[in-house]
């Protein structure tokens, strides 16, 4: 074979290879698009019939063919907010400790241990939450809380073990690893010069963190909180086991409720016809919420990382 031919052959083989791997990369985009298109298609009769009432309606009664998702959206937001309120101070504390304070020798094992928490399957969190954590929370925390602070609508009794609050606590434990991991990445990017400048001015360790580290990492930490919120919103099995399964909107977080993800998990296999379409529709709503949160959170983290790195 002539040398020129061989070069041409190699070049066209390279070209083919590039097209091949680009196709596979495009496949990732295609899968995401297909997810949205296919589920919307399946749920279309419900969207068409109920319109905006599907997300505004307060009544969910499959036996009467009435489908209003508001109680589930409410439950999803409330449980995720509780999780964020509990998990963020802890996660930022861990992230600061691991990047700025911990002795080099203990840093790596601690990082592994926090990651191990993320490796525990959701269903195991649920099993432990239902059988071990729930009765203890109910006896030692929720009951006294509603007895002492019951005059505040948020904690009005009687308290239930299966409640928004219990689901929120389980979710908080589950999202600590992701919020920690992303905050840690951003905090690690804070320039050394700033910390050294603060130290040179005689700042204490906390003042270094407060004046040099946290302001710089703030956008990234906000992003990590949003991604943690997104994770909590989509969490299914652990919540399904401890939420109580009653579609209601209450002021008290000590009442049983329901979330979008957990109602899909619990009702799908008993559903038929339009009920199934309504549950797929709930899935589309859940997907839309998590995509919005994730896009916003990722943009925050990307921008923060880029801003800090340059």
């Amino acid at each position: 074979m002539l040398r020129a031919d061989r070069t041409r052959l190699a070049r066209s083989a390279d070209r083919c290879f590039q097209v091949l791997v680009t196709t596979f990369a495009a496949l990732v985009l295609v899968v995401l698009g297909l997810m949205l298109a296919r589920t919307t298609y399946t749920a279309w009769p419900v969207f068409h019939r109920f319109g905006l009432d599907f997300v505004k309606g307060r009544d969910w009664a499959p036996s009467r063919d009435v489908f209003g998702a508001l109680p589930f959206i409410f439950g999803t937001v409330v449980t995720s907010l509780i999780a964020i309120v509990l998990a963020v101070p802890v996660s930022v504390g861990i992230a600061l400790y691991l990047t700025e304070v911990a002795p080099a020798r203990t840093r790596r094992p601690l990082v592994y241990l926090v990651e191990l928490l993320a490796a525990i399957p959701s269903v195991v969190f649920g099993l432990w939450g239902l059988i071990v954590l729930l009765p203890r929370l109910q006896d030692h925390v929720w009951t006294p809380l509603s007895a002492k602070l019951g005059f505040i609508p948020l904690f009005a009794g009687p308290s239930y073990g299966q409640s928004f609050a219990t689901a929120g606590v389980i979710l908080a434990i589950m999202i600590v690893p992701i919020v920690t991991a992303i905050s840690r990445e951003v905090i690690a990017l804070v320039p050394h010069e700033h910390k050294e400048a603060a130290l040179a001015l005689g700042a204490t360790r906390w003042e270094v963190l407060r004046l040099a580290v946290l302001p710089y990492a703030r956008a990234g930490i906000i992003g990590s909180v949003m991604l943690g919120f997104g994770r909590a919103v989509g969490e299914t099995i652990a919540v399904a086991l401890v939420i109580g399964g009653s579609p209601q909107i209450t002021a008290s977080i000590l009442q049983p409720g329901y979330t979008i993800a957990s109602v899909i998990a619990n009702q799908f296999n008993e559903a038929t016809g339009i009920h199934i379409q309504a549950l797929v529709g709930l899935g589309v709503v859940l997907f839309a919420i998590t995509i919005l949160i994730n896009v916003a959170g990722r943009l925050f983290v990307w921008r923060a990382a880029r801003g800090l790195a340059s």
Partner: protein
Amino acid sequence: MSGVSGRRRVADRVASVWMLGSVLCALVPLAFILGYVAYKGAGLISWTFLSQSEPFSFTERGGGFWNGIKGTLKLITVATLVSAPVGILAAVYLSEYGRGRFATAVRFVTDVMTGVPSIFVGVFIYSLIVLETGHFSAWSGALALAVLMLPIVTRGAEEVLKLVPRELREASLALGVPHWRTVFRIVLPTAASGLVTALMLAVARAAGETAPLLFTSFGNRFVTGWTDFNQPDSALPLLIFRDARSAYSTAQERAWAGALVLIALVLVLTIAARFIATRRSVRTV
């Protein structure tokens, strides 16, 4: 710090307590969960549990989770076979050609996809495959897990491929080796152990998932053949979920034992993946 005023010192102390307390807040639940699963699960783990199918009633004692264990092994094998080539080739694109707008879009979408709720992936595969074929099946469950693994594999593999030194690629290209052969003979083999790590972490994540299997693989009381993917199939997380909900102590005991098996599987994968990753980084640095 003798010159530091009292208030500043107190603030510093409070901050230290907060940070150390936060670490404890994460480690205590971890220890409690692992300890409790080991304590409750160990009692029932036996050859019977690992080799027999579940009994016909929740209230019956004995029996085991073999149908779920075998189902999980089948599902994650096929999910890996599907997601590994796609994810790794997409990662090759990102690391070898990945500049410009399209690559940024792929990276961004992949990141966003890791945040898609796993239950939604189940709903998607249900609507795409189960509704079309008219029945639940193991292969639809495996596909749901593959979709879940895809973004994890892609991003993990890209990180690893980017670590392969430029000089290696350049040396190969300078010798006149075509780019595609450079990828297969130089880049991928150099990154092999890192790719294995990325895959194992994705498998560990998929093995523990319940939500995507609820209405795809569905569950099956009977043990199915290794190559039979047309029937509904059980999985370890599905059995744990159902028995945890059952309200019968006999079933819940099996759920604890199943949780121990599942955690052992997931932790072995995770720790082994980390171990491989550390050994590799020591060798190349």
